[in-house]
Every structure is written in C-alpha cells, then in structure tokens.
C-alpha cells in the first residue's frame, strides 16, 4: 500500500464517527429506494406469477341467464383461447353466533373441482368432489376472520332458500384477490365472503340448471380484445348481459392495479426525495470535511502532488464511505423491503410472495449515490486545490466578522460575549450555515411525510362518513324493486329513517373517453346520502341532468359542467341518452355519478324502482334488525357504516405505522447525521479557538455553550423552515397520489408538526451530547502547539 493510501485508511479510521454518520445518511436514502422498489417489483412479480399459474381470465361478461349451448358459440369467436362458463350468485351467509349481516358471492366450479380458468389456490383442505352437493370452498380472508377450518359448517341463503354447506377447502383465486362487497370502499372480510361450489348443486339452488350467468375467457396470442368483446356482447345480448369487459375493468384486478400504481407513484417519489436529500447532505458534509484538510492538501501540493492525485485521494475516501453506505443500505433496504412486501401481500391478499431485489434497481440507486458523492467530493476538492499552496499554508486571514444584524439593532447589550461569538460565527459563513440549516430542515420535512398521511386519512374519513355517507346501514337489493320495499324497511322496529337509492351500471362517454361506473339516484333533499361541494357544504341534486365528482369529470372524462355526457346504460333495456352535466361535487373516495332518483328512473323507463336503501337505526336494536334483514331474500348486500370505518382503519393502520416507523428512522438518521457532522467539523475548525478560551479560564460548560449554542441556533432556524418544506413536500405527495380510488387532500394536524419538531430536537440533542464528550477531552497543550 502506498503512503497516500495509508493516509487514506488512517484518516478514515480517525474519522470513523463522521464517516459512519455520512454512510448512515446515504444508507437511509438507499434503503428507502431499495425498500420501495423491491416491494413494488416483488408485488408485481408475485401477482404476475399468480395470474399465470392460476390462469386468470382476460375477458369477463356477466349476464342474466344463457343456456349452456351458447358456450360453444363463444368458444368459436376468433381470438378466444379458453372459455369458462360459470354461475355467480349473490348470497346471504348465516354464521352461528355472529349476528351481523354477512353477504357473499358464490362462484361455481366444475363438479370435478378444478376450473379451467381462475383456478383456485388452496391454502388448506381440498376442492369439491363429484356428487357432493353440500361442499364449499371458502376464501382465506373470510375463513381467517371467522376462524373457519375445513370440516366447519355454515349456512347460505340463496334465492330465499336456506342451505347448509360444509367447508372442505380454504383458498383463493386470482379473480378475487381483492374481495370487496359491491359498492363498498374498503374490504370487510368478516362480513363479506367469496365461496366456490360445484356447478350442479349451485345451479339447482340458484335456478340456473343447464345455464350460466357469467363467462370468463382468455385470448389467443395476438387477438384483438375489443373485437372479441364486440362479438361476445352480440352473442350475449339476448341473454341480458351488461356488457363484457377486459381485465382492466375487473374489480379485483382494477383495485390491485390502482394500489400498485399508487405504490409505484410513491416509489418514484419517496426514494428520490430520500436519496436526493441524502446526496445533498453527503455533498455538504464532504465539502466541509475536505475543507478541514486544507493544510494537508497544501503540503501535498508543495511536495509536487498534482491536483488529480489529490482529487483521487479524496474521492477514494468518500467512495469508501459511500460504498459502506450502499452496503448498509442494501441490507436495511432488503430487510425493510421484505417487511413492507409482507404487509402489502397481507393487505392485497396475494397468496404468496416472491421477494425480488433486482440488480438493476441496486445499480440505479448505487450509481445515483456514487455520482452524488463524486460531485460533492469534486466540488470540495476543487475548492481546496484552487488555492495556491502558499495561500493555504499561510494562516487564514482573520475572518471578516461583523456585527450581526441583531447587534446592529441595538440589542448588543443583551448579548453576552459567547452569544455574540455564536451569532457572528453563524453570520460569518452564511452559506455554510444555510446548508446546515437546509439539511436539518429536510430531515424535518421528511418526518412530516411520515405522519401527514394519517392526518389526511382521518380527514377523508370524517368528510366521507361524517358529511356524505351518513347511514348506519346500507342495503342492496338483488334487483330493482319497488318503493314498497323501502316502506317495509322503514316499518321495521328499530329503523328510525330510511332513504332509497337507485344504482344503475352505465358506460359514461365523452368524446373519445369513457368510463364504467354506477349512476346513483338519490332522493331529492336526501338526509342520509348527501353530496358536498368543494367547500364541503351539502348541495342538493338538480331535478334533471347529472352530477359528477370532480375527479371523474376532470381527470377521467375531461368534461365540464354544461357539456353533454353520453350515458350508455348497461342494465334493463340499455337506453343510451345524452345528459347535461349540471355541476361537480367533491368526493375524496371513489368516483361517482349522481342523478335525482326520479330522473334516473325516467331514464330507465322502469317506473319508480329502487335498488337499495340507507337506514338510520336505533343502535340498541341492531341485532334484532339484522335478524329481520337476513330473512329477506332480495337483500344481497348489507353494510354497517361503523364497521366500514373500523375496517378502513385496520387496513391503513398497519401500513401507516410501518411508514411512520421508516420515515422516522430515516429522518432521525439524517438529522443526527447532519447535526453530528456539523458539530464535529465545527469542532475541528474551532478547536484552537475553544482551547484558547479554556486556557484563558473558560469552563468546559462555557465553551460547550459556544459550540453547541451555534448548533442550537441552526437547529432552531431549521425547524420552521423544515415545517414549511414539509408542507410543500406533503402537498406534492398528496397531489401525486390522486387516483380513482381516492384523492388525497393536504391535511396536516398540529401533532404532525409537533412530532417532526420533537424528533429533530431529540436528534440534535443526542448529536450535541456526543460532541460535548469530545469537547471535554480537548487537549489544550496540543492545540496551542500547532500553528495559529
């Protein structure tokens, strides 16, 4: 090893504290990047594998009833590879000892068990056996929620008839990865279940012998999906189809894709912020670190080392630190990646996880990190070698201190000499001070991103459930029914008030854009279901025309109030109408189109029909009401608002908690890293001055005050800036998170500000204490021996 490399090595050992802090900052950024992207890659891969191995269909078509003979006509469509016809039936599920309403969907599988498409992934037990009419396979989350095991029994109510079933298997299928009760915003595995029964017994129970009401198919290579859909719709039209759709519109897939897209957005955002901040800090720290070696650089130059050799020397040093950071980052990133992936696998209900950490991701992040380190070092070295050696060996000119602004204001008398030293030192090198402040501020801002999502979600829930969806229970009927049903419901003991809703599936078309959605018809001046404008004030529905939520109008359809929207109804006689968009409403969760219920019914030419109801109930008579509702065969979906909210929180809590943990960890590391390094470098730069003060009789406490007081001032300056930056950062994140599932408003609660402030203060204090220890060991003689 040559002498310069030995110097490098020994310098690194001497600087180990600082080097570690820098490496840790880099590692934070790196780990965040790896964590997010490996999670994203892993989830995408796991989903792809699941889809492939369990043959997820590509096109789906629901219909009322078609004879099995139609199947061959579908199979004959050009471009169709495999076809599966099934029965999909909504049911009510009765579970002993569980009073709440539980609904579900039963999908048929062949009597022999394994379906051709949308195969079942069995977690335990087996598929149904030929000739056993009471066997059922149930979805895993539903089984978990109730503690079901193979061998357990449950009852379903199908077409008004009660049927006992024996659970033989527990599993899932790519068709129902995300299991959402129709109309629900969040999954509730306790009250909504997916079941699979053999075709023959299900057809008897659902009155579909020799017929089917759902088609799933895959396409052959190179087939045109739209052509197939058009042919399929033509074939199925007489059989009451609401229109075939591609995978992208399939509920589970769509939800999952949106979530993955969300994660993808986050992955593009957070890691860049983290890595960017880390790189920035690296740059700052390296610049100052190399700055403290100014005299050594001058000596090397005096001996005839050229700038390149010196630059390479320091580059090596920084690269070693950066590499250490990368290694740490890979380890931490992989660990957190697995954790995060597992949370998401659980959340998305993927049956298995294939964790991958793609080398290309590691290389991307490593290159970014290395370049950041490289630029920082080069800038620093350039500054150091730019000086003529004679200049850098000459004692630095007495720095040009000035009275600070505060002193100029006449407050000088109030400041002690040490306080003046602090202020003058900060203002003496404003750029350096500003960089430190900015670094700490970034850490503070990152901390806020960890908490703001929680604030926002709480707010969204308050708006959604507090202002708009105020029902205690919502019910869906199996098919449109008369207003009498509502009157009946209202007369149930314990029901205090009820409102009707008419939901109609439709394709909304404007120019070249279209979107499948439900049009909800509400009663005029509805009390329970209300729409709110951008100021969160309730608005009433117009007598005619349609109201869209902002996201659907602006982002999806590109339509404005006053424009004509083409509505292609997918139910009943399937009318197509042009309806003017009257106004837009605010809706943070989901997307929706709304009409006056009377206007909607006129559009449907069906008279006064309703498809669901919202109820206010007396909470003490809840179970009694549930019992009564179970007896009503036409009620296929029942949601309890309170439960919705609880489910939502359960879903979010885990991810939020994890994210808060990660953000706090990383931001804490960054805060400590920057404060500690600032303190150490300031110590190096000022040890002579501080030792001189000690010789003059200052106590350790007094000189600590001068050094740490400076850090305290910088930290205190950084916090308000950090809170401001955090606000901007959170706003940016919120804006980039918008999708069909939710729009994220920027809401920052006071405790988020308090949290970020506290973590920064604690980090700064810890760093201060670490440096304070060194100050106690300041060698007075040694310091004074070296040249001024």
């Amino acid at each position, binding site marked *: 090893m040559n*002498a*310069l490399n030995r110097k490098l090595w020994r310098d690194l050992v001497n600087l180990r504290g600082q080097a570690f802090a820098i490496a840790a900052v880099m590692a934070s950024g790196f780990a965040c990047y790896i964590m997010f992207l490996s999670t994203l890659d892993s989830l995408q891969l796991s989903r792809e594998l699941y889809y492939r191995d369990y043959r997820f269909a590509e096109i789906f078509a629901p219909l009322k009833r078609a004879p099995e003979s139609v199947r061959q006509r579908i199979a004959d469509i050009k471009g169709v590879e495999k076809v599966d016809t099934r029965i999909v039936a909504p049911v009510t599920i009765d579970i002993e000892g569980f009073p709440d309403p539980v609904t579900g969907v039963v999908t048929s599988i062949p009597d022999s068990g394994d379906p051709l498409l949308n195969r079942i992934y069995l977690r335990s037990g087996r598929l149904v056996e030929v000739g056993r009419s009471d066997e059922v396979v149930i979805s895993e989350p539903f089984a978990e929620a109730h503690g079901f095991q193979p061998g357990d029994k449950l009852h379903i109510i199908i077409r008004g008839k009660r049927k006992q079933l024996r659970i033989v298997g527990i599993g899932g299928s790519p068709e129902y990865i995300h299991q959402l009760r129709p109309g629900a915003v969040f999954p509730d595995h306790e009250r909504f279940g997916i079941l699979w029964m053999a075709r023959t017994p299900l057809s008897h129970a659902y009155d579909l012998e020799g017929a089917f009401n759902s088609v799933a198919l895959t396409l052959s290579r190179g087939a045109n999906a739209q052509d197939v859909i058009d042919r399929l719709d033509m074939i199925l039209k007489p059989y009451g189809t609401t229109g075939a759709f591609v995978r992208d519109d399939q509920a589970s897939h769509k939800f999952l894709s949106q979530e993955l897209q969300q994660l993808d957005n986050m992955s593009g955002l957070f890691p860049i912020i983290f890595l960017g901040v880390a790189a920035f800090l690296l740059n700052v720290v390296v610049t100052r670190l190399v700055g403290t070696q100014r005299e050594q650089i001058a000596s090397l130059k005096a001996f005839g080392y050229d*700038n390149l050799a010196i630059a390479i020397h320091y580059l090596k040093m920084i690269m070693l630190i950066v590499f250490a950071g990368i290694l740490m980052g890979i380890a931490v990133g992989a660990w957190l990646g697995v954790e995060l992936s597992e949370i998401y696998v659980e959340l998305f209900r993927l049956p298995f996880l294939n964790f991958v950490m793609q080398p290309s991701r590691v290389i991307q992040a490593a290159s970014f990190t290395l370049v950041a380190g490289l630029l920082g070092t080069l800038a620093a070295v350039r500054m150091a*070698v730019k000086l003529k050696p004679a200049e850098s060996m000459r004692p630095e000119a*007495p720095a040009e201190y000035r009275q600070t602004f505060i002193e100029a204001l006449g407050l000088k008398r109030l400041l002690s000499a040490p306080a003046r030293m602090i202020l003058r030192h900060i203002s003496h090198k404003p750029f350096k001070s500003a960089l430190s402040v900015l670094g700490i501020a970034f850490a503070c801002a990152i901390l806020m991103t960890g908490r703001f999502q929680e604030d926002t979600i709480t707010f969204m829930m308050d708006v959604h459930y507090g202002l708009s969806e105020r029902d205690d229970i919502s019910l869906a009927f199996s098919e449109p029914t008369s207003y009498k049903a509502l009157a009946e419901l209202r007369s149930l003991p314990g029901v205090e008030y009820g409102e009707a809703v008419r939901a109609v599936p439709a394709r909304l078309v404007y120019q070249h854009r279209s979107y499948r959605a439900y049009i909800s018809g509400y009663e005029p001046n509805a009390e329970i279901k209300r729409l709110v404008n951008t100021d969160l004030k309730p608005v009433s529905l117009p007598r005619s025309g349609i109201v869209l939520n902002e996201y659907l109008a602006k982002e999806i359809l590109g339509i404005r109030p006053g424009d004509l929207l083409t509505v292609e109804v997918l139910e009943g006689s399937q009318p197509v109408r042009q309806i003017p968009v009257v106004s837009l409403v605010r809706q943070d969760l989901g997307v929706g189109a709304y009409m006056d219920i009377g206007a909607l019914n006129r559009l449907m030419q069906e008279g006064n029909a309703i498809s669901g109801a919202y109820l206010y109930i007396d909470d003490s008579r809840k179970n009694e009401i549930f019992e009564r509702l179970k007896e009503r065969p036409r009620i296929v979906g029942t949601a309890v608002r309170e439960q919705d909210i609880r489910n939502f929180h359960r879903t979010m809590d885990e991810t939020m908690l994890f994210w808060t943990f990660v953000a706090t960890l990383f931001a804490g590391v960054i805060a400590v890293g920057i404060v500690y390094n600032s303190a150490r470098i300031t110590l190096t730069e000022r040890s002579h001055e501080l030792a001189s003060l000690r010789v003059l009789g200052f106590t350790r406490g007094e000189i600590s005050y001068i050094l740490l007081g400076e850090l305290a001032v910088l930290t205190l300056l950084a916090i308000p800036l950090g809170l401001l930056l955090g606000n901007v950062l959170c706003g940016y994140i919120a804006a980039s998170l918008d999708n069909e599932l939710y729009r994220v408003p920027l809401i920052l609660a006071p405790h988020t500000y308090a949290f970020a402030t506290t973590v920064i203060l604690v980090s700064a204090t810890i760093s201060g204490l670490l440096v304070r220890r060194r100050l106690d060991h300041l060698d007075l003689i040694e310091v004074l021996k070296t040249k001024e």
Partner: protein
Amino acid sequence: MHASTPNIVFHAEGVTKTYQMGEVQVHALRGVDLELYESEFVVLLGASGSGKSTLLNILGGLDIPTSGTVGYKDHDLTVYKDSVLTRYRREHVGFVFQFYNLIPSLTARENVALVTEISTNPLVPEEALELVGLGERLDHFPAQMSGGEQQRVAIARAIAKRPDVLLCDEPTGALDLKTGIVVLEAIERVNRELGTTTVVITHNVDIAQMADRVIRLRDGRIISDEANPDRKAPSELSW
C-alpha cells in the same frame, strides 16, 4: 560561497507581491532583485513581516509575484499555471516548514515515502531518515515524536527526492536551541553532502553564521546582501 561553481540557479528582478488579508492589503514584497547560485547555503534574515516567507514561497513555486520576473534555471516562475508549478516543485524543490506540516496519520517512514513515491530518483526513505539521524524512529507517528524529531522527518521528507534546492522556512522557529542545532546540522549535512542549493529563512541572526551568504530583508526589500567567508558549523552556534 563555492567560487568554483558560480552557476546561477535563481534569478529574480523587481519582484513585488501584494495580497489581501481580509480587508487589509499587504505589500509583502516591494521590489526584490536577487540571484542564487548552485550549491550555496543562503540565509534570508528578516523580522516577522519582512517578506522573507513570501519570497521563499515564490522561489518554491507555491506562489507567484504580483510583478517582476523570477526564474529557476530555464523555468519561469511568474505565471501561475498549476500543472507547471506542480511539476517544478515535484522535480526540483524540497520544502521544510516551520510547523513541519507532517501528515499526522502517517509514520515518519510513510511521510517520507509520500514524497519518494512521486519522485524519479529518490533516496529510500530509511536512508533519508538515517541522514537526519532518525534511523531509529522510522515507525513513529508525528504525535509520538518531539518537535525536533518531527522537523527532522520534514527535512528527510524534503531531501529524499534529491531536490536541486532545499527551501526551509524558519526550520528552527518552533524548537529550542539544542534541537534547533540538531535540525540545522541535518540541513547543513544535506547541503554539504548532496550539494543542494539551500535557502533558510529565519529571524534568528545567529543562524546566519553558518551560511555562505546572508541576505537581509525589511519591509519587503533587500537591505543587505553579504558573503560570509567564515562559515561556522551549527554546533558552534548559540542563541
């Protein structure tokens, strides 16, 4: 003076140097004319602020004059071209500083090696350290050595590349008499045995007695330039 070898190595004419120290303009040199000859031992005498360090830095290619001409043999030392000056220093100049400027993280041997590694025909580090009487302290770090020892390491480091000129800036400034003499002996020995043109700057008049020639500076000007026919050995000096 070595009358038999009157080759001029340094030639300076009308050299001035002005630099900014904070808000103050310092006129370090106000017109210096100077010639230095091969193998001679020159002492530049002057009080603090007389401009001697500035002159030395210019001769050593660490700095350039504000005006005037300076040349080492055929090298022009008035143009600040970093790569040119770096090469000049690497190939021809050995420096000894008042505060040693050793690299604290390297041992004595490694500090010398730092320079020998970039030289074409150097002494081996051990040999150079032997020459300054530090053959026994090869593996000590600067912090483990006395000031005199550190300065002798610095001298070993300066001469290990067999420079054509050895420039010493207050080499004994931070040392007591006894160690100072040991250091001066080392410098003298290098001058004598290797024939290296040596310039020592000091404010210590007594050290002048060991020189071939003594040049005095005051306020950035040369006020006298005298040959010293009666060159003394360092051991005969005292201050």
